[in-house]
C-alpha cells in the first residue's frame, strides 16, 4: 500500500546551517505522528516546509500521491494550528472558524452548518459571537483547532498545541485532541519538545536532533528501545553507566562497569568493547536489605523528591556511580522512609538498554 504522506530527503539550509537535514518518513492515513526534539532541532522548520511557508532545498513531499512542491500554501490540503493560535483578533469565533470556508465556493447555509458542527466538536457551542480576547487559553486553543479543521485538510499540522496551556488543562486537552483525531480520521503531525505530550498523544514518534530524524517508532519502542543515548536521555529520565564487555555467559553478557553487571541482550558484542548501559528509574528497586538479586549493589541516598504517586531518589554507588530511581507508592515500603541514608539497588538483566559508547 502506497503511503498516504510521503516525505523524502527533505533538507533546508540557512547559509551553512542545516535546519533540516535529509529527513524522510512515511505516514499512513489517520496516523497521529509526533515530531519530538529540543528547541532548534528543526522540527518547526520541517512543519513550515510541509505547510508551504518555507521552501526546502532538496526533497519531495507527497500527499495521497500528489506532489506538493509547487503548491501554494493556500491550495495545499494541509492546515496548521499555530503555537500561539494566531486567531484573528478582530473577528468573532464564528468568523475565525469560517474564514477558510468563506474562501471556497460553499454556499452560506453549508458554511453555517459546518461551523456549528465544528463548534460542537470542540465543545464551544453558543460561543460563536465571542471575540478571541474574551476567551480563556483553552477555549482559544479549541477555536484554533476548529479553524484548522474547517477545510477538512488531509493533513493537519499542530505546532506545540499544548505549550501555552497550564498542566491540568494540558492533560485534558491531550485526550480531547486524540478523541477528535480518531473521530475525524485526519492525519495529524504534532510538533513538540515535550516528551510526555508526544508519548501520550501519538501513534508514532519521530525524534529529531540537529536537523536529523534520529529514531522513528511507537512511543513504547522509543521509550524501551532507544537507539542512541540522545533519544534515551531526551525521552524520559534515565541513568547511564560506562561499561566494558567482559564475557558471554550463555543467556547473559557480563559487563564491567563500576561493578559487574549482567545484561540480557540479543545483540552480539566483542569482548573488550566499550558500551553505555542505560537504566530507566522505574526499573530499579531500592531496598533496605540485600535481596540476592543478580544485579545488586549498595548505595548511599543523596536526595529524594516526593511526587505523590511515587518518590524519585538520586543515589550514589561504588566508584561514584550515580543513578536516578523511582519507587512507586503502590505498596508500603520501608525503603521509602525519608530516614533511610543507605540502601541496596537491584535491577533485572532485561531492564538494561545497551547503547554504543
Amino acid at each position, binding site marked *: 500500500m502506497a503511503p498516504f504522506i510521503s516525505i523524502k530527503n527533505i533538507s533546508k539550509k540557512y547559509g551553512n546551517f542545516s535546519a533540516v537535514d535529509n529527513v524522510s518518513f512515511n505516514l499512513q492515513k489517520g496516523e497521529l505522528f509526533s515530531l519530538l526534539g529540543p528547541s532548534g532541532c528543526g522540527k518547526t522548520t520541517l512543519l513550515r516546509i510541509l505547510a508551504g*511557508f518555507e521552501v526546502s532545498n532538496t526533497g519531495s513531499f507527497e500527499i495521497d500521491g500528489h506532489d506538493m512542491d509547487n503548491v501554494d500554501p493556500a491550495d495545499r490540503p494541509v492546515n496548521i494550528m499555530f503555537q500561539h493560535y494566531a486567531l484573528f483578533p478582530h473577528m468573532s469565533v464564528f468568523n475565525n472558524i469560517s474564514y477558510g470556508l468563506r474562501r471556497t465556493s460553499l454556499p452560506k447555509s453549508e458554511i453555517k452548518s459546518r461551523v456549528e458542527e465544528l463548534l460542537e466538536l470542540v465543545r464551544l457551542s453558543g460561543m460563536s459571537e465571542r471575540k478571541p480576547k474574551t476567551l480563556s487559553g483553552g477555549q482559544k486553543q479549541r477555536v484554533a483547532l476548529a*479553524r484548522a479543521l474547517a477545510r477538512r485538510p488531509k493533513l493537519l499540522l499542530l505546532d506545540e498545541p499544548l505549550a501555552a496551556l497550564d498542566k491540568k488543562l494540558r492533560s485534558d486537552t491531550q485526550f480531547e485532541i486524540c478523541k477528535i483525531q480518531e473521530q475525524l480520521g485526519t492525519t495529524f503531525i504534532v510538533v513538540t519538545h515535550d516528551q510526555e505530550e508526544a508519548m501520550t498523544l501519538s501513534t508514532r514518534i519521530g525524534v529529531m536532533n540537529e536537523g536529523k530524524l534520529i529514531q522513528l517508532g511507537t512511543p513504547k519502542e522509543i521509550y524501551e528501545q532507544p537507539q542512541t543515548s540522545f533519544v534515551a536521555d531526551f525521552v524520559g529520565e534515565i541513568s547511564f553507566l560506562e561499561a566494558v564487555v567482559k564475557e558471554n555467559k550463555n543467556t547473559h553478557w557480563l559487563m564491567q562497569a563500576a561493578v559487574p553487571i549482567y545484561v540480557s541482550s540479543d545483540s552480539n558484542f566483542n569482548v573488550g568493547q566499550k558500551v553505555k548501559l542505560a537504566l530507566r528509574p522505574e526499573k530499579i528497586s531500592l531496598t533496605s536489605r540485600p535481596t540476592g538479586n543478580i544485579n545488586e549493589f549498595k548505595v548511599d541516598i543523596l536526595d529524594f523528591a516526593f511526587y505523590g504517586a511515587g518518590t524519585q531518589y538520586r543515589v550514589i554507588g561504588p566508584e561514584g556511580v550515580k543513578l536516578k530511581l523511582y519507587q512507586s507508592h503502590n505498596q508500603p515500603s520501608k525503603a521509602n522512609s525519608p530516614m533511610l541514608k543507605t540502601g541496596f539497588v537491584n535491577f533485572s538483566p532485561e531492564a538494561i538498554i545497551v547503547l554504543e559508547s
Partner: protein
Amino acid sequence: MNYFFQRFGRQIVIWLPLAWLLLFFMLPLIEMINVSFSEARRAVPPYNPAFQFGPGGISFQPVVDNYYLIYEYWEDYLWPAVNSIRLAFFSTLYCLLFAYPMAWWIARSNKSLQHILLILVLMPFWTSSLLRMYALIGLLNPNGFINDILIWAGVTVIPIQMMQTDFSIYAGMVLTYLPLMILPLYASLVRLDGSIIEAAADLGARKWDIFKTIILPLSIPGIIAGSLLVFIPAVGEFVIPALLGGPEQLMLGKVIWTEFFRNRDWPVASAIAIILIAIIILPIVYARYQDKEGIS
C-alpha cells in the same frame, strides 16, 4: 527628601505635565474664547475683554457680534473653509497612500534596519519646515531642477507649470506631514503578528484578500491616528499654501491671518479660529462617542 518623593512622586508625575498643558494650552485657548466674545476697539490690545478682573472688580460683558458677523457674511468664509477641508482631506489621503507601503515595509524589515529607517523618516524634522518649502520651490519652479531635466530629456519644450497649483500644495503638504502618518501606521503594523498573516494564507486567502480582511482592519487604529495627526494641522495650515499655492488658494489659515494682521480685528479672527476648532473636534468627539456605544 526621599520621603517626599515616595509620598508625592506619583502626584508630581501626573500633575507637572497637566500643569504645563493647563498653563500653555488651556489658558491661551480660554483667552482666545474670551477674545472671540469681546468687542473690537482701536487700542492696545485691540479689543475690550469680555471677561476681566482687576482693580475695578470683575466685569463680564460678552458680545456675540463677531460670530454674528461671520454668520452674516458666511459666504465669504464658506469657500475658504471648504477649500481648507478639501486640501486637508486630499493631503491626508495622499499621505496615507504614500505612508502605508512605507510603514509596512519598515515594520516587516529586520530590527536593526527598522531603527535606521525610522530615523530616516524623522530626518526631515531636523531642518526647518520653511527651508524645506523653499527647497521644494527650487525644484518645482518653471526654471527649477525638475523642469530643467524634463527639457533636457526632451519630454517638454516649454517648462511645465507646477508651482502655484494644487500639485505644489499637495507636494508641500505630503512632504511636511508624511512622518506623522508613517509613525502611527508603523506602530500598528509592527504589532501585527506574522503568524496571523500565515494563518490567513494557510486558510486559502490570496495576497489582496489577506490585505483586505486581515492587515487593513487590524491597522485601522493606526490609520485613524495618522489621519488625525495630518488632517488637524493641515486644515489650519497657512505657510504651505501661502508659499506654494496660487493667489486664488484662499484657506481659513490665510483668512485668520488677514483678520489678525491686516484688519487688526482680533475678536473676529478668534471667532473664526474657534469655529474651525469646533468643526474639527466635533466629528472626533462624535466618533469616539459612537465607538463607546458600540462596545457596551
